[in-house]
């Protein structure tokens, strides 16, 4: 091999090596792109729901209430009959089976929706109005194009007759897409068209607030102690080793801790944001302490010495001068820690947040779900409608995380002082 050949070979090896590096970065970026695209393409349709325009006649004989009835009377009244009467008039049905097939096109909450319309306007007796009744999950998925029509009837959840009605409705422009308010307002449900993340949102909110209230002060105080006051001795070393180890303990172990100590020993209520918040706080604590200490360490010693020189006590120098300067870094570390806690699932599953909760929690000691746990729960469901709901929940979760991370970066860049 001549010198030139060898040099050429070496240079092409150089180029190859460089290419591998670049390729790995692009591969990683590609993964991000595929993941985000996959979630968004599946989930964006969940923000709309399919409704069917139905003419409802409020028949006094069937309802047995009068115009101007009070809210209590309306709530007591039975709207079932007029619901059925209105729904089966959407398309001429020949027999009871066909009527049943018609009713199956609509959500099981159709009666409640009609009742709600009457509650808003109690002078509708004897009148006909057009209402947009939410369609059943199957029709919803069909209308959004997520449901294949060309498979044999016995493997479909929608019968041929229902497809005929659907096509007829589409032709007459009776099928409409509305903003899916149920998705944000409702709690969990077995029916995908009624299921929402309202309960999970509130549960996550309470958990994170409790986590913040517990973890932030303790983390800041602990890092001030370790960075500013702690003598160099065995106890301090031991605390530091502990914190570093805790930051690397798998999150599921915190779930076991919560199960044994919080639920079994001191008997806090199961499945509640309170327990979730405490568990997440224990887990987040070391993860906040580490950036807090880094930002305290970044404050130059001259600041402390200056304060001490004009007669401040050690405490005054720390709390009046060092801590305010370290605050932006501290806050951004806290927000990033909270963002991790918001996405944490495994410990929450162990403390029973997987329970099926329909009601929206009003206090932190009501049973509740949380956003990531809702993702887990829905992803286990067989119904097709839950796939888009899960993806949409992930979209909500990711957007919260993005906002929190941007806030952390902004705080750091805007307020942090550079010392060199």
């Amino acid at each position, binding site marked *: 091999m001549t010198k030139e050949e060898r040099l050429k070979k070496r240079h092409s090896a150089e180029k190859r090596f460089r290419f*591998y590096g670049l390729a790995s970065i692009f591969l990683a970026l590609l993964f991000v792109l595929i993941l985000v695209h996959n979630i968004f393409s599946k989930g964006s349709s969940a923000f709309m729901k399919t409704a069917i325009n139905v003419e409802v006649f409020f028949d006094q004989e069937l309802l047995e209430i009068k115009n101007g009835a009070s809210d209590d009377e309306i709530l007591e009244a039975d709207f079932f009959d007029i619901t059925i009467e209105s729904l089966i008039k959407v398309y001429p049905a020949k027999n009871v089976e066909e009527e049943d097939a018609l009713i199956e096109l609509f959500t099981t909450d159709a009666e409640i929706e009609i009742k709600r319309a009457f509650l808003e306007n109690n002078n509708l007796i004897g009148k006909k109005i057009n209402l947009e009744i939410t369609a059943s999950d199957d029709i919803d998925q069909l209308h959004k194009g997520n449901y294949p029509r060309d498979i044999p009837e016995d493997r479909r959840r929608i019968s041929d007759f229902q497809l005929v009605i659907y096509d007829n409705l589409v032709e007459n422009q009776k099928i409409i897409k509305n903003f899916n308010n149920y998705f944000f307002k409702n709690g969990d449900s077995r029916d995908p068209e009624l299921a929402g993340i309202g309960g999970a949102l509130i549960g996550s909110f309470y958990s994170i607030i409790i986590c913040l209230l517990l973890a932030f002060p303790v983390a800041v105080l602990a890092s001030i102690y370790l960075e500013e006051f702690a003598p160099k001795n065995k106890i301090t070393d031991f605390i530091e080793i*502990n914190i570093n180890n805790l930051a690397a303990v798998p999150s599921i172990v915190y779930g*076991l801790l919560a199960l044994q*100590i919080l639920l079994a020993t*001191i008997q806090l209520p199961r499945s509640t944001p309170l327990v979730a918040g405490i568990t997440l706080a224990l887990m987040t604590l*070391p993860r906040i302490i580490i950036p807090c200490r880094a930002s305290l360490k970044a404050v130059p010693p001259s600041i402390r010495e200056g304060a001490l020189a004009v007669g401040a006590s050690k405490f005054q120098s720390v709390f009046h001068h060092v801590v305010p300067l370290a605050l932006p870094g501290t806050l951004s570390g806290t927000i990033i820690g909270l963002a991790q806690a918001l996405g944490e699932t495994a410990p929450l599953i162990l403390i029973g947040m997987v329970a099926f909760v329909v009601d929206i929690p009003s206090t932190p000691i009501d049973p509740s779900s949380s956003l990531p746990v809702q*993702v887990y729960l829905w992803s286990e469901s067989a119904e097709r409608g839950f796939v888009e709901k899960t993806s949409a929940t992930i979209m909500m979760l990711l957007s919260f*995380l993005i906002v929190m991370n941007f806030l952390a970066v902004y705080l750091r860049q805007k307020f942090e002082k550079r010392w060199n």
Partner: protein
Amino acid sequence: MNFVLIFLITIFSLSLFFYGRSKTKSISIEKNIKLNALPKFYGYYLVLWCSIPSLVFLLIWTLFEPVIIKSIIIETAANQGAIFNDKNEANLIYEKIKAIYAGTYFGDIDTILKESALSYAKFINLFTNSKIVLIFGIVIASVIYSLKKIKNNNKARDDVEVILKGLLFASSLIAILTTLGIIFSLLFESIKFFSVINIFDYLFGTNWSPQRAFVRDASAITAEEYEELKDAFGFIPLIAGTSFIAFIAMLVAVPVGLFSGIYMAEYASLKVRRISKPIIEILAGIPTVVYGFFAALTVGPFFRQIGENLGLTVSSESALAAGLIMGIMIIPYVSSLSDDVINSVPQSLRDGSYAVGATKSETIKKVVIPAALPGIIGSVLLAVSRAIGETMIVVMAAGLAANLTINPLESTTTITTQIVMILVGDQEFDSPKTQSAFALGLTLFIATLVLNYIAQRAVKKYREKYD
């Protein structure tokens, strides 16, 4: 009740602040003496003395009250003739008693339950009353003590600082308490588990099927039953599955992570670095449940489809899908750590290599990487410890049945998956099945601890070498 007490203590403390401040001012004017601290510090001193002892007491009391009341009530119920065979039934009866007390129980109430509910009400009252009395006592005692100190013109600022320093120290102790809590809660149940199942049968058993482990009475297990039990709690398939999935993850994460770390540290311009580094770190910020969803609903079926086209049987919960996605999740851990490690290799080593005519890639391969190797190994070990502790991806995308296999297309299970499967939903107390989850947790805890320890030692040693 607790909220009212906390509110009262807060209000009282705040008013003491103003009292202390004005009182010391007036004392200094009256007696014409110089105060040893600014007046406000006397206020702080009173606030701290008034609030901290009472709040700490309240916290401890609230934590232990339900436990104590429960044991008393169960004991009295047993004395009155209530029969319960195990902890489950005792808990059930206790819940009934509580429901009767709250007026939300609609079943039949026999005399034992009625008596117990009455004594429950009595104890609740007694405990609440004594709590209030004791808290008032503590507040009054500490306020009298601190007022006396103030009147003697103490060095309030120094005293306040001593108290605050104690508070700071106490907060840093929470880390130790958490560790103790973890060790205690894992050991407690694990010891119970190992008293039933021999630890060697657990560690070296090759069959894991806890759902078969049904024990009528955990305290008296016959030899026959034990043979069956022993067969249900073999750890080998779990550690095999866990390592296997972690291995697949590492096959993805190490090359991609390492190469991007190298590129970022050695080749990338500042601009490329500034953009690509945060984007790769997004991968670390995505919640693992999202990866799990992606693996279970997209990647798993996708691999299955490819397998079908190639004529292979691929499980839709294949180890390959879970491992691949876990590997993607771990890329940023490897890349950013190795980036740091490579960056801290001294420039003089590179310059030496360039001086003898090596190309950039030769320098990296022959000089930089060997120099950074301990740090890189440390970062890979940290990544491995993340992989074996990772839960959601494997719960959603890997199998549930323990399966000793090295075929990546079949499904296997992992330690974390089994913990979740055992503990999700209703659990029986004191059954080896529930306890086994804690034994698994303990094993996992020890494994990650050892890995982290070695990794941190490696990174630290490496840092010291070039400092």
